[in-house]
């Protein structure tokens, strides 16, 4: 098991390095001048062509953009390793400070969305599988099918309209940190979490249901029945662990979906989190911030995939011992 974990960690690190390359290359090689935003700032009028070619040259030098791409990449990476994510051109602050401000918010709501989405979905899926063919199963499966088609941002808007505007149960938008005022914060996060969690629940429920049904048809479950075990014991001891193996491997994808959803939800509900930071940076062409925030998102996914792999090994002895 230790060897397995070490191998997964090495692969994770390798992918992280490749992700830094991908992000860096995408930002640098796609058409677009990394100084566009700076130039607009510089001129103060939003016009770019006010800057003379000489000033442009000087700026390129200042930001190290005149060096060859591999050198630039190396500069960037070595700074990151020292904990320096660069400077925001737009806001004029260290990016690490910007991210330190917003990341806990996204992490907090993302974590809640993930917990609600996965556990909710798994429970619904198990319920449907056990009650397969009943009207409750059909209803929930249909809702799940529809839930997978709902655009997160649209659902957010509908929730605001119904539960905040019409019914007045929750605040319309905004953010209060749970470490400042826990109860008030709860009222602010209910709608955003519901909006994102629905898709997660729907996907997880569908997957769990089909995995459970698959496992129910296996020979070893028949063996368990032939042993005279109760249905409850068979479900818990013999079916769940096997059915969870594919479900757990899908968790990484679900987290990606939820983080992606949080980008929209932060926009709809005006929550100043990672997603908002990145969207704003894209609009302001603050390329260093874009780079850094994409990297943070990638890092979160890679880290959670590592946890998923470890959980997988723990669930499936065939992985653990190979």
């Amino acid at each position: 098991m230790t060897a397995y974990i070490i191998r997964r960690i090495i692969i994770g690190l390798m992918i992280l390095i490749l992700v830094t390359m991908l992000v860096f290359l995408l930002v640098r090689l796609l058409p677009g001048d990394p100084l566009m935003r700076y130039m607009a700032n510089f001129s103060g009028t939003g016009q770019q062509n006010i800057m003379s070619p000489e000033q442009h040259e000087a700026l390129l030098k200042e930001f190290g953009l005149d060096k060859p791409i591999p050198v630039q990449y190396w500069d960037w990476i070595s700074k990151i390793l020292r904990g320096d994510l660069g400077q925001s051109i737009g806001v004029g602050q260290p990016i690490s400070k910007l991210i330190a401000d917003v990341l806990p918010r996204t992490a907090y709501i993302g974590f809640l969305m993930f917990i609600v989405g996965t556990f909710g979905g798994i429970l619904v899926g198990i319920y449907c599988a056990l009650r397969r063919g009943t009207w409750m199963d059909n209803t929930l499966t249909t809702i799940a099918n529809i839930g997978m088609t709902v655009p997160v941002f649209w659902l957010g808007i509908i929730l605001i309209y119904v539960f905040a505007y019409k019914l007045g149960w929750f605040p319309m938008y905004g953010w209060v940190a749970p470490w400042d005022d826990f109860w008030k914060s709860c009222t602010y996060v209910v709608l955003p979490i519901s909006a994102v969690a629905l898709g997660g629940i729907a996907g997880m429920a569908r997957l769990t249901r089909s995995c459970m049904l698959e496992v129910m048809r296996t020979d070893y479950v028949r063996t368990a029945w032939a042993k005279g075990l109760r249905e409850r014991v068979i479900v818990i001891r013999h079916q769940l662990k096997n059915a969870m193996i594919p479900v757990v491997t899908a968790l990484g994808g679900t987290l990606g979906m939820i983080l992606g959803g949080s980008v929209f939800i932060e926009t709809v509900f005006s929550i100043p989190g990672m997603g908002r930071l990145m969207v704003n940076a894209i609009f302001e062409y603050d390329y260093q911030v874009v780079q850094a925030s994409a990297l943070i998102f990638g890092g979160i996914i890679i880290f959670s995939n590592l946890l998923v792999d470890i959980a997988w090994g723990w669930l499936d002895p065939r992985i653990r011992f190979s």
Partner: protein
Amino acid sequence: MALLDVQDLQTYFHTEYGLVKAADKVSFHVNQGEIIGLVGESGCGKSVSILSIMRLIPSPPGETVGGKVIFEGKDLLKFEANGPQMRAIRGSKLTMIFQEPMTSLNPVLTISRQLTETLELHLDMDKHSARERAIELLRMVGVPDAARRVDDYPHQFSGGMRQRVMIAIALSCNPTIIFADEPTTAVDVTTQAQLLELMKDLVTRLDTSLVIVTHNLGVVARYAQRIYVMYAGRIIESGLSENIFNHPRHPYTVGLLNSVPKLGERHGTRKLIPIYGLPPNLINMPTTCAFLPRCTEKIGKCEKEPWPELRAVDKDHYISCYVDIKGK
């Protein structure tokens, strides 16, 4: 008085193409300490009969619609399929060994867990004594280094070893009857012989009855005392093993025996004769004998009259045919 008396068991499957009478009025009995062979081609209803007795037919699409299964004076078909009475019998008094050793054990549970769960359930053993007993059972079925291997997972065992574990599970609660559904079909020939010898030794030693379901005539010839031959959901001939093998009376059984080589038979002394055609499609069958289209012995009556019931042709020898090969 037989231990288990199956009378007119009928199990139907409702498929999208129509009704399949997978087991149609199957009757047989098992006596104390006997080894019974249930023989027939794939799809003839032998496994379905066993699963019906164990009440393990998946429903839907399957359904046991008629008959009686008398065990210890009670009709098992009267019990709820997964109700408490049936669960108390299943896995303790009536146990099963399945065909596929590779998939019949749960891949994520240790061998020990899969052995101890029946011991804890049916014999009320505590964890410690159940584990001791599990190791003892593994030794009994010939798993080397049992004390260590008891904590392994199924994927660390070979197919033959896994089937030994299945045998150990089946034996764990001192069963009255063990049903072995094609127990050796999926393992290689040398392992097959070992497993069969092992099962025979164990059931003889423990005075347990064994029902072997197989399409392999060699297996039943060597081990079974009595044989039931099935075709298209029915038992078409039954009798003592030596009678069936030496003096088969039903055209199908005759054809079956003519189509397989016998060990030790000299080359060229007998020509193998296949049974032509295919087993019938069980959907919407005619009422006449299902073997009729392939039969080489048919008489005019066969085409007109329905498939006959079993009739005695000798002491303890029954066939369901208008023609009696020996009598001809």
